[in-house]
C-alpha cells in the first residue's frame, strides 16, 4: 500500500517536471509576441514609426548584422542602461541620444520573450494603410435609432386607417346605391362623406360636445406641456469639435471621471479637462481604431505637438478647444458639484446618466427646478461621521421624534429654500 503511494507521488513529480519542461521549452508563438508587445512596448514604440522610442520593425536583423548574434539586442532590451555601461556600444549610445536621452524602462522579459516580440514585429503587415473598415455594428445602431421614433409609425398608421376608412365608406355607399336601385327607392340627394359627418354631429349633440371638450382638453395639455418644455433641453446632443467618446475613455478604458474632471471634488465646476491632461495619455496613444487618429490630431493641433518628432513645437500659438456646453444652468442658479459629489456622495451617473456608455454625451436629465427639488425631497443626507451635521442631526431627531425619524432629507435641513441656489 505504502509503495503504491510512493510510486504515485513519484510519478506525479515526474509528470509535473516534464510538463514544466515542455511548457518552458516550447517555442513562443506569434500570438504571444503580439500580446507581449501590446502589454509592454506600445506605450513608447510603434512597429513602423518612431514614437518616444524607435520603430521596432527590422531592429532584430539590424542588431544581428552588427553584432553577429541576438545576445546584444536581448540585453539591450532587458536593461539598456546596463548594456550601454558594460558594452560601450556606440550605436546604442547614439540611439539613446537621438531619442532625447530617454531611458528605456528595464524589461522583466526572458530572452525568448524578447525574441518573440521582435519576431512578431518583423512579421507584422500593415492592414491596408487606410482607416479601419467601419463594422456593421455602428450602422445597425444608427438605423434602429432612426426608426425608433413612434410618431412616424403613428402617422403611417393614421394614413393607412384613413385610406381603409375611405375605401370602406365608398364600398358602403355603392352597396347602398345598389340596394336602393334594386328596391327602386329614389335617393333624394347625393350626400358626400363630409356632409354625412356633419349630420352625425348635429344628430348627437351631447356626444359632440363631450368630444369637443376632450379635444380641447387634449390640445390644452399639449400646449401646456410645450410651454413647460421651453428652455428644457433634455437630450441635447450638440456636435463637438472633437469626436470624443466617453464610452471609450470612461467605459472601455475605465478611466476614473475625476482624472479628467479634476475640480469636481473641489469646486462648483466639474471642469472640462485642459489639453495638457489629454496629453498625459495621448503623448503615447496617437492612433485610434475608428476615427481616433484624426480626432487625436486635433489635440495635437491645439497644444502644438509634433507626433513625428514626438516633441512639443516651440513657440507654437496654442489654440483652446471650443467645446459646446451641454449642461447649461441659468445664470441665476448656483450649482456646486463638490457639494453633491463630496458631501452628498452622489454618483456622476445620477444626473448625467450612463455616461460610460455614451459615445457622444447628451443631456440626460431635465435640469429643471422641479427635477432638482424632487431629488432634494427624496434624498437622505449622509450625516453619519460628518462633524458638521452632528448638532443639526440631534436637533432634527428631537424635532421629528413623534414621527420617529432618524435620517433626514435635504428638504428637512432647508434644501428647498430659495437662497440655497438663487443668489
Amino acid at each position, binding site marked *: 500500500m505504502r509503495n503504491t503511494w510512493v510510486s504515485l507521488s513519484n510519478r506525479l513529480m515526474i509528470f509535473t517536471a516534464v510538463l514544466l519542461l515542455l511548457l518552458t521549452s516550447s517555442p513562443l508563438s506569434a500570438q504571444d509576441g503580439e500580446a507581449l508587445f501590446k502589454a509592454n512596448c506600445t506605450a513608447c514604440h510603434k512597429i513602423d514609426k518612431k514614437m518616444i522610442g524607435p520603430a521596432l520593425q527590422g531592429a532584430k536583423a539590424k542588431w544581428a548584422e552588427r553584432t553577429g548574434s541576438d545576445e546584444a539586442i536581448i540585453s539591450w532590451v532587458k536593461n539598456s542602461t546596463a548594456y550601454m555601461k558594460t558594452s560601450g556600444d556606440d550605436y546604442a549610445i547614439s540611439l539613446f541620444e537621438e531619442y532625447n536621452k530617454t531611458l528605456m524602462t528595464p524589461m522583466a522579459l526572458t530572452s525568448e520573450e524578447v525574441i518573440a516580440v521582435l519576431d512578431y514585429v518583423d512579421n507584422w503587415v500593415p492592414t491596408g494603410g487606410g482607416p479601419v473598415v467601419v463594422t456593421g455594428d455602428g450602422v445597425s445602431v444608427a438605423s434602429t435609432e432612426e426608426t425608433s421614433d413612434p410618431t412616424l409609425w403613428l402617422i403611417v398608421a393614421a394614413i393607412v386607417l384613413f385610406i381603409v376608412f375611405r375605401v370602406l365608406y365608398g364600398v358602403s355607399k355603392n352597396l347602398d346605391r345598389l340596394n336602393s336601385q334594386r328596391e327602386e327607392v329614389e335617393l333624394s340627394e347625393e350626400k358626400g362623406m363630409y356632409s354625412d359627418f356633419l349630420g352625425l354631429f348635429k344628430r348627437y349633440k351631447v356626444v359632440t360636445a363631450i368630444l369637443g371638450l376632450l379635444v380641447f382638453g387634449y390640445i390644452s395639455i399639449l400646449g401646456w406641456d410645450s410651454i413647460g418644455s421651453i428652455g428644457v*433641453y433634455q437630450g441635447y446632443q450638440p456636435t463637438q469639435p472633437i469626436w470624443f467618446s466617453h464610452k471609450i475613455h470612461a467605459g472601455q478604458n475605465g478611466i476614473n471621471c475625476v482624472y479628467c474632471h479634476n475640480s469636481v471634488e473641489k469646486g462648483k465646476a466639474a471642469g472640462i479637462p485642459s489639453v495638457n491632461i489629454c496629453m498625459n495619455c495621448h503623448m503615447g496613444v496617437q492612433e485610434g481604431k475608428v476615427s481616433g487618429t484624426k480626432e487625436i490630431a486635433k489635440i495635437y493641433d491645439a497644444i502644438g505637438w509634433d507626433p513625428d518628432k514626438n516633441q512639443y513645437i516651440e513657440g507654437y500659438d496654442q489654440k483652446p478647444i471650443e467645446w459646446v456646453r451641454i449642461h447649461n444652468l441659468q445664470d441665476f442658479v*448656483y450649482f456646486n458639484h463638490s457639494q453633491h459629489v463630496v458631501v452628498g456622495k452622489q454618483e456622476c451617473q445620477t444626473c448625467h446618466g450612463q455616461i460610460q456608455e455614451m459615445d457622444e454625451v447628451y443631456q440626460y436629465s431635465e435640469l429643471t427646478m422641479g427635477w432638482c427639488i424632487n431629488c432634494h425631497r427624496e434624498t437622505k443626507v449622509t450625516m453619519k461621521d460628518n462633524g458638521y451635521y452632528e448638532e443639526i442631526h440631534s436637533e432634527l431627531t428631537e424635532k421629528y421624534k413623534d414621527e420617529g425619524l432618524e435620517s433626514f432629507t435635504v428638504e428637512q*435641513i*432647508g434644501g428647498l429654500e430659495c437662497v440655497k441656489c*438663487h443668489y
Partner: protein
Amino acid sequence: MSNNKIYWRGTEELEKDASFVKGAQKEFSEELPIDQFLGKKELDSTSTSRRDFLKFMGFGITAATLAACETPVIKSLPYVVKPNEVMPGIANYYASTYFDGFDYASIMVKTREGRPIHIEGNKASKATRGGVSARINSSVLSLYNRRREMTPMMGGQASDLASINADIKSKLESVKANGGNVRVLSSTMISPSSLSIINDLKSWLSSGAEGEEMSAASLEHAMYDAVSLAAIKDAHASTHGVAAVPAYNFAKAKSIVSIDSDFLVNGINPVGYSSQYAAGRNPESGMSKHFQFETVLSTTGSNADVRGAVRPSDLGAVAVMLHNAVAAKVGGAMAGSASLADDDNNVVAKINEAAASLAANRGKSIVVSGVNDPAIQSVVNGINEMLGNYGSTLDLANPIKLRQGDDKKVASLVSDLKSGSVDVLFVMDADPLYTMPSSWGFAEAFAKAKAQVVFCEKPTATTAAASHVYPVAHFLESWNDANPMGAEVSFSQPTINPIYSKVQWQDAFLTWTGAQGTYYDYLKAKWNSEVSPQDDPSVIFASKWNKFVHDGVGMMDVPAMESSIAFNAQAVASAASSIKGGSTDVEVAFYVKTGIGVGLNADNPWLQELPDPITKVVWDNYITMNPSDMKSEMYGFNTMMGEQEKANTARVTVNGASVELPVVAMPGQKKGTIGIALGYGIAEVDEDGTVRTIGANVFPMLPVVDGYIRYTSAASIEKLERRYNVASTQTQHTMMGRKILNETTLSSFTSHSKEHWNPEVTVSNSYGTEVAVDKLDLWSEHDINLGHRWGLSIDLNSCIGCGSCVTACHSENNVPVVGKDEVNRTRSMSWMRIDRYYSSEADPQLHGDINVARDYHAMEVPSDYPEVGFMPVMCQHCNHAPCETVCPVAATTHSDEGYNQMTYNRCIGTRYCANNCPYKVRRFNWFNYVADHKFTGVNPSQDNLARMVLNPDVVVRSRGVMEKCSLCVQRVQAGKLQAKKDGTPVKDGSVQTACAASCPTNAIAFGDINDPASRIRSEAKNDRAYHLLEEVGVKPNVWYQTKVRNIEESEASHTA
C-alpha cells in the same frame, strides 16, 4: 348741523360764466389736436391697411417669441495648459500691498480665474491690522480702467518703449560723461528696493565715463505729498533732533486731542489708526476720550466726544492754549501766549477740559495735529513731551515711513528746474501739474527741464506736458516691497497678467544702468540676502523670499536707532511765540474727502458714488458752509439741495484765483468759514452723452507759507445767480426724537442700569396696557433655533462712518453704479447705506420740555454745532418680515437660517415689499443698468473690461426686480460647504460678510447666533444691544450696539 359751505375754483364758477359752463363739461380745457395727427394725408395714402398691420404685428410677435426660445450655443473653452494653482470656480487669494503715496494697507487680493475681483485687509500686518478703507478696496476697479490704455509718447509723438529706453539711456549717458543734473520727483516712496534703485542710478551717473575723473553728474530725489505733513517731520527735527514721523498708538491712548487732524480717514496711516482708535473705545473696558478742534466737520471730528469748531487761523492759538493749560496742570514751562479771535462754541472751556483729561492720562494720551505748520507741530510735540507720551503712545525709535514728503526739497527742485539746469526729470507716482500750488510755478518750471520722463498708469495733467510718457503697470500687476513703519516690510505681487503696459519704472531704471535681470530678480536677490539665513522653522519653502511673498508681510533687520533723542524745550518756546493770533475774515479750509482722497482715483465710479460721510453728497464737489451762515442776510443761500430746491452757487476767490461751486450746508462747520474738498476737477463723467468735469480743482489755490503748503487761506465769497442740482442720498438730518441711533453717555452707561440708557421697548396692547414688543405678534414663529441662524451686530461705538463697508459691498455683490441723476431720484442701488444723524436743539430726548406738535419743524433743524452719529443700515433680515407678507409671488421668503431671502428670478417687480419695509433697504432695478445707454458712462459693468471685476458667484440682476442685502449668502454657503467637506462645525469667524471683513474698526460682527461660542451671540445678548425700530415688532436678525459718548450726562444736551 351739516356744513353748507360751497367752494369755488374761481370767480368764473361762482358767476356761472357761459364759457366756463361750456368748458366744465369737457375733460380737457382745450380741443385735443386729434385731427392734426389723424387727418394727415400721408396716413390715407399708405397702402398698409389696419388688417395688414394686425397681421404683421401678430406674425412679428409670434416670430419674436419663437426666436427667443431658441437655445444659444454656449461654448466652453478650457485652458490649453492649465496653471496648477488655478481651479475654475475657486478663488485664489494673494497677499499684496496698496500704496499710492497717500493711502497704505497690506491687502489680500481675491482672484477668480486669474482676475482680481475683491480686496480685503491682510491680518498679518501690524501697521494696518487687517483693515482697508473705501479708497483701497475700490482700487480693484481701477485695474480695469480703459484710460490705462496708453501709447508711449516721445516729443509729442507716439513711440514705443524700446526707442524711449534708447533715447533716455543716451541722455543719461551724456549726463554721465559730461556732467549734468538728473532729478526725480515722486510721492512718498516707502519701497526700500525702489529707493536703492534710484541710488544705483545715482552712483552709476557719478561714477563718470570710463577712464575719466568723477563727473559732475548729480541726482536728487524729492518726495512730494499732495496733502503734505512735512511739518511733523521738521518739527521733530527741531524739538527732538530726529527728522521722523512718530508711530502713534491710539489703542493705548486714554485721552486723544486732535488739532485739525482727520487721522481716522485721511491721516498718516488712517487704516491702522482707525483700528487702534476703535480698540480703545470700548465702553466696557476703559474708553478713551477724544477731543477735536477743527474747522470743517471731518469724519474724525464727527466721532469726537468733544468737538470745538475753530477758525483755521485760530488753530495755532488752540495749540498754544492747550500747551499752557497742560503746563499749568502738570507743572511744565509756559510757552508763548495766544487767544482765540472768534469763539462761539465754548472752545476755551473745551481746551481746558482737554488739558485736564490729558493731564490725568500722562503717558497714555496723544495730541496730534494735521496742520502743516512747523510751529504748531512743535507746540504739539511740546505737549506730548510734557505728558511723557514719547516712548509710550508715540514711537520715534520705530518711526512711520508714510508721508515723507518734503516741501522744502520740492521747492529747491522747482528752483533747479527754473534755472534750466535739469537735463532729465523723472516723475513717478505723482501728478504734480495737478496737485502743486500755483504759487510754486511748477508748470513753467517743468517745461524748462530738457527732458521730462513721466511714468504713469493713465493720462494725467503731467503726462500731457511731458516730453516722454512712459506707461507702467498697475500695482496689482507689479512686484514691489514697502516699509511702512519700523521693521515691517510688506510685499506686492502681480495678481493678473498685465492688461496694458507690462513694465514698471524700476525695470526701466535697471535697463538704463545696465543691470542684469528685472525688478523681480532684484527684489528676490535683495530679500533673500537681506534676511540672515538662520533657520526659521516656519520657512517651509526653499527661500525666505517665498515666505515673504506668501505671507505678504515680514520683518526686516533695521539698524537700531541712535538713542540721541533729546528734547529741545527752547524750540517749542520759540515756535509758540511765533504763533500769531487769528483773523475774523472769511476763511476757507481745503480738506480731503473720505471717498476721493487726493483725487488719484477720482475716475473710479465706486468712489464717486460713495456718499460723503457727512454731507451724503455723491458725484460732486461743493463749498461747505454752516447753515446758519447760509441763511444769514449776508448770503441768503438755500440750505436745501436736489432737484426741487436746487443749491445756490457761489464764486470763491483766493489770492486772485477763483472757482465756482454749489454751496452745501454742513452743520458743525465753523461759522464765518467755508470748506472746499481737494481732489476734484480732474475726473470726467459721461452722463448720458454729456461729459461733465466733476467739481473744480482747488490745489492751485493752496498758499505756501514759509516753504510749507497750507491748507487754509483767507477768501472772499460771492453769490451767483446760477442754481445747481446737487445729489445726496440723505435729506433728513435729525432723528426727530426717536430711538433710532440709540446713544448714551459714559457716565450714564457706567452708573446706571440698562433700563436707563437702553430701555426695553414697549407697545400698548388693545387694552391700553404697555407690554414688551415680543408679546404682541401678527405672525407665527419661525423655527429659529434649528441649525444656523445668521445675524449681524453693528457696534455704533466703533463705527466711524468711513464707508469701507459700502464699497466692499458694491464689489462683492455686483451692485450697479447709477450716477448722479438717479441718486437724485432716490434710486441709489447701494445695499448698505450709512445714515448720518445730527443732534438738534429741539430734541425731546435731550430737552424734556419740547412739545412735538409745536416744535416739529424745529426738531428737523440740526444744531449749528451738532453731535454726529453714524448708523450703517442694510436689510435687517427680520424674522417677521413685513416684505414677505405682501409679495404676491413669494419672491421674498424666510429661510430657517435667518435670512430674508430675495429670489430675483421670481420677482415680478410689484415693489410692494419696498413699500412695506420699515427700514427702506430694498432697491429696485428701474433700469437694466448693464445695458441701458443712460448708464454707459457711469456703470463700469457696461464695459467688457470692467465687467471682469464682477463676482461670478453673484448674479447680475436685471431690470424690474427688487434686490437687497443678502447677508453675503454666497460666502456663507461657501463657508458651510467647506465645513461639510472638512466634517467640522462652522467655526465662528471663518465666514465673514464683505462689510464685516472690510471694516477697519471691527464694528461689524457676523456669525451664527445659534452657536453659543460666537461673537454675535454674546453681542446680541449684550446690554448695549437693541434693534432698529424695535417697536414695529419685526424681530430683526441685525442688532445695533448703543453708542456711548465719553461725556458727562449733564453735557449731553449742550453742544451750542
